[in-house]
C-alpha cells in the first residue's frame, strides 16, 4: 500500500443501497477493492454486488472487520454518517457527499480529529492506490501503478492529470482528491506529508485552483519539509476576480487567492508549475531526472 488506501483496506460503504452507493460499490468491487460490507439502516440481509448490508456501522465493523468507510448518503444525513463511522472505530472515512452545510462540518471536523481518525472530503472524489484499492468515484482504468503521488482539490481535473501521467508511462503510487469545500478533513499539507514519508512515492503532483490559501500553505510546507520533487498545476489562471467558479473556494477576492499568487508561492518552494495539465508529465520527468 502507498498512502491512505491499499491492500490493507477493508472497505465499508455507507448508503450502499442508494443509487450512487450501488453504482460505485459495483465499480469498486470490479476494480478489486476489498469491499467487506455496506450499511443502510433497515437494509440488513440485503446484498449489493455481493457485499452484505447491515443496519449500523457498529454491526458492520464487528461482523466484517471494516477499517475504512466511504460515504454516499445525502448531505443532510452525511454528518451523522461520519459520526457513526468514527464512533464505530473506523479510522479512515471518505465522504463523497457534496452540499453539506459549513456549520455542520465544523463540529464534525473537530470530532473526527479528537477521536484520532481521518476524514477525506467531503465533496471529494476519494483516493486510489492503483492496482490495490479504488475508494471513490474516479474511473479506475485511467490509473496505473507507479511511483508518482498525486493530490488535488478537484475531481475531473485530477483524472485529466492522471490520464496524462498514465499515457506518459508515469504510474501513480496513490492519487488523492481532498475536495473543494470550505471545511475539509484532509488538507494538501496532510497528503504531501504522507507522500513525503511514503517509500513507494518518488515525486508528487499537486493540483490546486484559485481561491483560499491552501496552496500557499502547501508551498510553505513543501519549502520546509518536502525533499522529494514536486510538480504543480493551478486551475483558473484566466478566471476573472469576484466570480465564484463552482467550488465554494474558487473565487478571487481582495487581491488574494489568485492563480498568479499561488504559482509564485509554489515556485518559491521549488515546485515546477505546469501551465496546462498536459505539461505535467514532462515536468515530472525532468524533476525526477534532476532530483
Amino acid at each position, binding site marked *: 500500500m502507498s498512502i491512505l488506501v491499499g491492500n490493507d483496506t477493508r472497505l465499508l460503504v455507507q448508503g450502499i443501497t442508494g443509487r450512487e452507493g450501488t453504482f460505485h460499490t459495483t465499480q469498486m468491487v470490479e476494480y478489486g477493492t476489498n469491499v467487506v460490507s455496506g450499511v443502510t439502516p433497515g437494509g440488513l440481509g440485503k446484498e449489493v454486488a455481493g457485499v452484505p448490508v447491515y443496519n449500523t456501522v457498529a454491526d458492520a465493523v464487528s461482523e466484517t472487520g471494516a477499517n475504512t468507510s466511504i460515504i454516499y448518503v445525502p*448531505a443532510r444525513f452525511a454528518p451523522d454518517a461520519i459520526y457513526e463511522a468514527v464512533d464505530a472505530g473506523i479510522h479512515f472515512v471518505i465522504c463523497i457527499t457534496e452540499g453539506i452545510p459549513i456549520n455542520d462540518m*465544523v463540529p464534525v*471536523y473537530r470530532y473526527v480529529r479528537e477521536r484520532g481518525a481521518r476524514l477525506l472530503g467531503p465533496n471529494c472524489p476519494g483516493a486510489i492506490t492503483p492496482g490495490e484499492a479504488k475508494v471513490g468515484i474516479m474511473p479506475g482504468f485511467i490509473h496505473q501503478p507507479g511511483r508518482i503521488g498525486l493530490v488535488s482539490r478537484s475531481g475531473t*481535473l485530477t483524472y*485529466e492529470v492522471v490520464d496524462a501521467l498514465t499515457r506518459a508511462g508515469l504510474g501513480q503510487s496513490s492519487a488523492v482528491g481532498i475536495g473543494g469545500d470550505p471545511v475539509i478533513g484532509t488538507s494538501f499539507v496532510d497528503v504531501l506529508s504522507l507522500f513525503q514519508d511514503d517509500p513507494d512515492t518518488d515525486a508528487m503532483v499537486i493540483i490546486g*485552483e484559485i481561491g483560499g490559501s491552501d496552496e500557499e500553505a502547501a508551498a510553505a510546507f513543501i519549502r520546509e519539509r518536502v525533499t522529494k520533487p514536486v510538480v504543480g498545476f493551478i486551475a*483558473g489562471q484566466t*478566471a476573472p476576480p469576484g*466570480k465564484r467558479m463552482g467550488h465554494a473556494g474558487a473565487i478571487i477576492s481582495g487581491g488574494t487567492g489568485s492563480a498568479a499568487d499561488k504559482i509564485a508561492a509554489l515556485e518559491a518552494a521549488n515546485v515546477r508549475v505546469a501551465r496546462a*495539465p498536459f505539461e505535467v508529465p514532462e515536468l515530472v520527468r525532468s524533476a525526477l531526472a534532476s532530483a
Partner: protein
Amino acid sequence: MDIHEYQAAEILARHGIPVNAGTVATTPAEAEAAARAAGTLVAIKAQVHSGGRGKAGGIKLARTPEEARAAAESIIGLDIRGHVVSKVLVVPGVGIDQEFYLGVVLDRNARQILIMASAEGGVEIEEVAQTNPEKIIRIHADPDRGVQPFQLRQMAFDLGIPAGKVAGFAAIAGSLFRAFLDEDATLAEINPLIITKEGDWLALDSKMSFDDNALFRHGDFEALRDMAEENATELEARQSGISFVKLDGNIGCIVNGAGLAMATMDAVKMHGGDPANFLDVGGGASADQVAKAFGLVTADPNVRAILINIFGGITRGDVVAQGIREALARVAVSVPIVVRLSGTNAEEGRALLAEAGLTAVDTMDAAAAQVVASAA
C-alpha cells in the same frame, strides 16, 4: 447567497442587536418622504450586493428632504462594481463617538468560526488585515461550545472599549455569533459598530451572506433574494445543479467539474481564444442536464463555437453523448461544436456521437486548439 444591508439589519435586529433602522426607497420621491418622516439629517445608502459603495458615491448625507431626493436621484441607477443601484436605504444620521469593526466568518485553515474585531471601524477589514494586522483581535469559537461571554469581554478590553461599554459589546458580539450560526451565514459583519454621542451601541452598517448548502433549513430566505441582483441565467442554471458564470468571450464551454472547467478556460485562453462562460454540469449529470447546459450556452448570442469537455467519473460518457444528441434534436445549433470525451464509458459515448455525426477529440489541449480555430 448575498442579501442587502437593510435585510441584514432586520435579521440582526431579530437577534437583539441594536441597528439603525431605516426605510427602503426605490424612487427619489420615496427617499424624500422617508427623510421627511425621519425629520432629521439622514444618510442615503445604495442597496447593492457589492462593497465599495462609499468610494463609488453610493452613500450620501442629506440635511433636508430635498437634499435626500437629490441624493437618491444621484444614487439610484449608479453602477457600483457592475451592480446597478435600484433601491436606497434612508436612515437617520447618528452622532458617532467611537467606531469599531465586528465580523464573524469561517477560518478555512483552522476549520473554525472566527470572530474578528478592530478599533479601525468603517474601514474594510481586508485593508486593516494588510496594513495593521495587529489591530485585529481574533477569537476562534469552539466548534462544540461556541464562544463564551468572557472571551468577548476580553476582546472588548483588548480593543480599549471603556469599562462601562464592555458588557454591551460582549452582548452584541455574542448575538452576532449566534446569528451567524442560527442563520447558517458565511459572513456576518457590522462595520462600523459604533458608540453614539449619546453613549449607546449601534450597528450602523450590517452585512450577511448565507451558505447556499444550508438554504434548505431557511425557507424564508428565498423572499430575501433580489432578482435584480442575480443573473437570471445563473440562477436558472443553479436550480438544475449547474454552475454557470457568464463571461465576455465567444467560446461556449460545457465541462464536468469546476476545476476541469477552469483548466478548460485556461486552455482556451492559452490557444488565443476567449471563453464565453464558466459551466460545470456537476457530477452524475443526466442527459437532461447536459441538454440544459447546451441550452444555457447557446442562448448567448456571442457564442461562435462550443467546447464540450467531459472526463467521466460519476458522469458517464454515454450519458453525456445522449444529452448532446437530445439537445441537438431540440435546438438548432448553428455554431461548430468540438467534443472531448474521456473516462468512464467514453468509448460508448464516442460511438453515440459518431452516430450523430460528431467526432470526439482525444485530448483537452487539442480540443481547445480546435475550438479556438473554429471560432476564428
